[in-house]
């Protein structure tokens, strides 16, 4: 059995590197969730990208810092950019431009194409961005007001709308917390929080819009109602009468100040209807020409209601105009303005209503027909169109409690974007447990006595007969489908079925917002189930430390950093067991270990201390962890009575000045088809196949070096180490390891001190292969030993470990690699492919191992013998050929990790990338040698066989007659 595998491996290694994606496979075998992240209430709006056209696009700047435009009709992303985290986004009314403020920079974007018009970066953090409205239209591009926090002080800059250059700057002298900027055309207001955290007062500075000089300043005493910036509910922007509002502690009253009117702090009572009010939001129009009306939306635990207020600009008095009645459940309210008119759209579980801010008459009412699985509506952005005298249309993009972004068009669901899937932090493959029953039955039959097994089998087969009619009914469709269908793994939507090729698997994805998703890799990445695992407070991310899928019972265990864990059924997504965060000690990492009581996922506490475990659950193997300062430690569990205590066996601490930034090990599933590499003269270079090796990456920032240590993870011996000088330690240094080779990439510079060897500047990828000996046919110091021990390599006491012989080669690559992983196949016969995530081009490239061969002849053409080995001339630069890019035209942003899994077909490996986006495909690094391609014409094969059959039927009698005649006539 071993021989053909090896021969095949040899044959495959000689095959030329193949294309990563064939044209007919693109968009067919791969799937991509183009995600934005959760849209934020204040940065999501409809806006006309061309002011002279009526069509609008839906813009958002999400919680992940993705700025994107979504087509409101189809829900497809028109364009998107990854910015630096959360921020502010404002439309420039009447210009089709958007202004974003994220991190330290303010940028303007063309709404239609998504091209950047200008960008300007400053020293401080952007705190708010506002468009400076002008009194008269047609004065050129509108200017931008950008509020910064620089060294704890507020700085307001007015930027020119056309170029982003600074027109004027206003520096606040006091160290108040800059909060927001607002304008009512006449004045510019800078709202800052004065005082210390826990009890802020609100300070409003009034500036002259032309010069940026301070005109006036006043402080509103909050009496301790404002503890944090989040407590201020709204600072209305760009309306005729911008307001600032907050509630008192008990949520009984709303305090409102019209900006610019210093002594005018009005108290509006909040009416309780169904118990205490838990949340209050204020909705006000954002246009200068809109009527100065606003809406106060108050939620109790079970219902929600709203009040609409009007502001009398002249007198500064706020009057309650009408109220929207209490409705059970949660609801989303959104404002949209058309010229002076302001419309409020209220979307609850049952109906959508639109009202004008001027009067309480309902302008439109539609029943809501939205899939209940999306959960309740949280917030949204609406667009109301006044079609005729009395007819209105409304569409609102609403985020639901299940983190789906649903477009509700006149009450009906137009599209849904699974935005909750964005920001994935961990993922793992899970088998679809279908034939588990059969496998168990077969196993049981194998273990019982032959007679009873036979009887059992007969009974089982008789029982199976009930499926026969259905099978026979389906058979013609299957045959016709397999002949005519082009899809080799045809898949019914919504049905989780294992296929014969093992392409259908589940990917369990955990996101930073505490949700877990099940994604069907065979069904074009469809979301099979989703689940809210934990409530993660805003501003925090769920830190998932490990996912372990137990395929025998179909349970996935997800462990988080705060000791929380959840057990999820992989098929249904039901949580079977759950532990809330904080109840158990913190977890630094997790490892799947084998113990006398079975396999389980062992949490490793802080500083790499797994703690004591019951003796029954003690891992049989050693464990390698990282300690407090990143040092690598080897642990062994010592059973003492009923407990097993971890004992540090070895510690690897790099020299002073070096910091460990990464540790890589061989994947858990890393089969090796051939233990040696056959050279052209039929001799063998034996691979160094130690499963217990880890590659430690250490950097020294002072000397700008990166040092790679190859450790034996049982004994802690350093097997190999190498140093790279002139390395930019701030850039990505990534590594991957498989079989007998490891690879890493870094950015390196030419040093003036470097002499002799030629050096290169740029991104480099270094591949090293480990062999037992540099002499062919030699198995190294261990000789013909059938087993190896890292602790006692030979019988000689205190012997040196068997060191591998390393071949290394460096290649230049055009761009930075942020993450590396390696394809996996069932037997390891197929040549592996290195999957590299490219951040700058938002793609994933699959580099065949044949290119990354350190034994390629340098500076000369290969000899015939080398050619026979499949070696070709060394080229210093690996160009990322578009054909090698697995994502082809797709832009996959924010990829954090790429996981791979073997399919049942040896040729194929499944790939799943997650991060902001989710992307999946399957690759065949040595070409799909065990499956018929789409170019194989089954129809012509069947037609040929049928034609031959017809020919035989027709010609048979003729030939027979002729033979008989011939006999009689000769005789």
């Amino acid at each position, binding site marked *: 059995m071993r021989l053909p595998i*090896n021969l095949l491996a040899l044959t495959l290694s000689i095959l030329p590197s193949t294309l990563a994606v064939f044209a007919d496979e693109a968009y067919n075998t791969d799937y991509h969730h183009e995600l934005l992240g959760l849209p934020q209430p204040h940065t999501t709006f409809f806006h006309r990208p061309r002011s002279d056209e009526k069509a609008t696009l839906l813009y958002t700047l999400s919680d992940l810092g993705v700025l994107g435009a979504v087509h409101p009709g189809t829900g497809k992303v028109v364009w998107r950019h990854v910015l630096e985290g959360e921020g502010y986004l404002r439309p420039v009314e009447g210009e089709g431009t958007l202004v974003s403020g994220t991190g330290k920079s303010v940028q303007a974007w063309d709404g239609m194409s998504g091209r950047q018009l200008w960008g300007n970066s400053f020293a401080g953090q952007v705190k708010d961005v506002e468009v400076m409205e002008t009194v008269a239209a047609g004065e050129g591009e509108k200017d931008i007001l950008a509020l910064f926090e620089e060294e704890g002080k507020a700085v307001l800059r007015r930027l020119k709308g056309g170029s982003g250059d600074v027109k004027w700057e206003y520096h606040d002298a006091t160290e108040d917390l800059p909060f927001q900027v607002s304008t009512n055309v006449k004045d510019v207001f800078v709202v800052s929080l004065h005082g210390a955290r826990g009890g802020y007062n609100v300070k409003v500075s009034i500036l002259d819009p032309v010069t940026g000089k301070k005109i006036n300043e006043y402080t509103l005493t909050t009496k301790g109602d404002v503890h944090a910036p989040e407590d201020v509910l709204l600072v209305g922007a760009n309306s005729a009468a911008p307001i600032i509002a907050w509630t008192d502690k008990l949520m009984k009253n709303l305090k409102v100040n019209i900006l610019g009117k210093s002594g005018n702090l009005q108290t509006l009572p909040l009416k309780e209807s169904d118990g205490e009010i838990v949340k209050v939001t204020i909705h006000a129009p954002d246009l200068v020409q809109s009527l100065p009306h606003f809406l106060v939306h108050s939620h109790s635990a079970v219902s929600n209601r709203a009040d609409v207020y009007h502001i009398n600009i002249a007198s500064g008095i706020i009057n309650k105009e009408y109220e929207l009645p209490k409705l059970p459940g949660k609801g989303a309210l959104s404002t949209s303005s058309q010229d002076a008119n302001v419309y409020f759209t209220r979307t609850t579980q049952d109906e959508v209503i639109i009202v004008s801010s001027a009067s309480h008459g309902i302008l439109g009412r539609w029943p809501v027909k939205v899939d209940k699985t999306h959960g309740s509506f949280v917030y949204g952005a609406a667009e109301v169109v006044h079609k005729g005298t009395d007819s209105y249309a409304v569409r609102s993009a609403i985020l639901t409690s299940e983190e789906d972004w649903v477009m509700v068009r006149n009450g009906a669901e137009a599209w849904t974007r699974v935005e909750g899937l964005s920001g994935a932090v961990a993922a793992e493959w899970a088998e679809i447990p279908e034939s588990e029953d059969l496998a168990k039955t077969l196993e049981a039959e194998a273990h019982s006595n032959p007679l009873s097994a036979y009887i059992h089998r007969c009974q089982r087969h008789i029982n199976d007969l009930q499926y026969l009619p259905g099978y026979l009914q389906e058979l013609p469709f299957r045959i016709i489908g397999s002949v005519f269908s082009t899809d080799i793994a045809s898949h019914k939507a919504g049905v989780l079925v294992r296929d014969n090729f093992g392409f259908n698997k589940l990917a369990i994805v955990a996101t930073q917002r505490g949700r877990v998703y099940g994604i069907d890799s065979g069904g074009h990445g469809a979301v099979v189930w989703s689940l809210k695992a934990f409530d993660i407070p805003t501003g925090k991310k769920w830190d998932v430390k490990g996912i372990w899928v137990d395929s025998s019972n179909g349970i996935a265990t997800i462990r988080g950093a705060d000791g929380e864990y959840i057990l999820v059924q992989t098929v249904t997504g039901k949580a079977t067991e759950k532990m809330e965060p904080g109840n158990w000690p913190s977890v630094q990492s997790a490892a799947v270990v084998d113990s006398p009581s079975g396999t389980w996922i062992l949490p490793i506490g802080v500083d790499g201390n797994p703690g004591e475990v019951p003796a029954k659950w003690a891992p049989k193997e*050693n464990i390698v962890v*990282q300690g407090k300062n990143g040092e690598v430690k080897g642990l062994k569990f010592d059973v003492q009575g009923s407990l097993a205590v971890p004992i540090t066996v070895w510690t690897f601490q790099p020299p002073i000045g070096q910091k460990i930034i990464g540790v890589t090990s061989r994947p858990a599933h890393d089969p090796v088809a051939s233990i040696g590499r056959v050279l052209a003269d039929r001799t063998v270079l034996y691979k160094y196949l130690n499963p217990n090796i880890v590659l430690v990456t250490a950097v020294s920032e002072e000397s700008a070096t990166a040092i790679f240590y190859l450790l034996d993870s049982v004994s802690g011996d350093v097997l190999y180490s190498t140093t790279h000088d002139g390395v930019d330690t701030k850039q990505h240094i990534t590594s991957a390891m498989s079989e007998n080779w490891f690879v890493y990439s870094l950015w390196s510079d030419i040093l003036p001190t470097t002499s002799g060897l030629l050096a290169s500047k740029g991104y480099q990828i270094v591949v090293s292969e480990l062999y037992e000996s540099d002499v062919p046919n030699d198995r190294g110091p*261990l000789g013909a030993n059938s*087993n*190896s*021990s890292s602790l006692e390599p030979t019988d000689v006491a205190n012997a040196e470990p068997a060191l591998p012989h390393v071949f290394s080669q460096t290649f230049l690559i055009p761009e930075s690699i942020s993450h590396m992983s390696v394809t996996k196949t069932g037997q390891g016969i197929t040549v592996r492919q290195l999957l590299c995530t490219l951040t700058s081009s938002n793609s994933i490239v699959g580099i065949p191992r044949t290119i990354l061969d350190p034994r390629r002849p340098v500076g000369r053409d290969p000899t015939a013998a080398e050619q026979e080995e499949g070696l070709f001339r060394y080229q210093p630069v690996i160009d990322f050929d578009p054909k090698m890019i697995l994502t082809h035209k797709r832009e996959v942003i924010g990829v954090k990790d790429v996981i791979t899994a073997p399919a049942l077909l040896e040729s194929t490996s499944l790939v799943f990338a997650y991060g902001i986006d989710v992307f999946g495909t399957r690759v065949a690094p040595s070409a799909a040698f065990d499956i018929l391609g789409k170019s194989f014409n089954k129809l012509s094969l069947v037609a040929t066989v049928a034609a031959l059959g017809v020919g035989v039927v027709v010609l048979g009698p003729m030939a027979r007659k002729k033979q008989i005649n011939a006999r009689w006539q000769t005789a």
Partner: protein
Amino acid sequence: MAAPPPPPQWVIDLNSPPATKPKSTGIPDPPGFTSTVGKKQQGSSKTAVRAPLTATEMDTLKLKKAWEVALAPVKQLPMTAIMMYMSGNSLQIFSIMMVGMAFKNPIMGLMATNQAFEKLESEGIKGKITMVKAVYVAMQLLALALGVWKVNGMGLLPTTRSDWLAWETARDPLEIAIPAF
């Protein structure tokens, strides 16, 4: 019983062809006519002249013949070797057939060793013929060796380390360490 009728003239002619014409007639034979009769008569006249062989002479002749049989395979060898050399070491139908023949002929020859010498066996030269047989076997083995050489040249003999790689296994590690990072 009456005497049988005299045979017809054509039977007589057939049984007694006309006497050999003297060569000096000057009339050439018609094209295509070979006067076998004359040659036969000449041959027969020669053998008739020779005295019958003695048993020893017969044995000597037989032994001579046996040596010829024994050395026959080796005479083909240079030719085969050249052809093998010319056909190259690649796996093609021609070289495969050649290799097949190179193995088939010696093996068939070895199996038919006794049949080859059956006619030449006699009591007198029993000991000598055994030696001849041994030489015959050696020659066949030589031819076989040529085939083996060819197969080796084609790389079909499992003589190198790589041929046995599939039966070699990776060393079993006695300890396992699970990474938990």
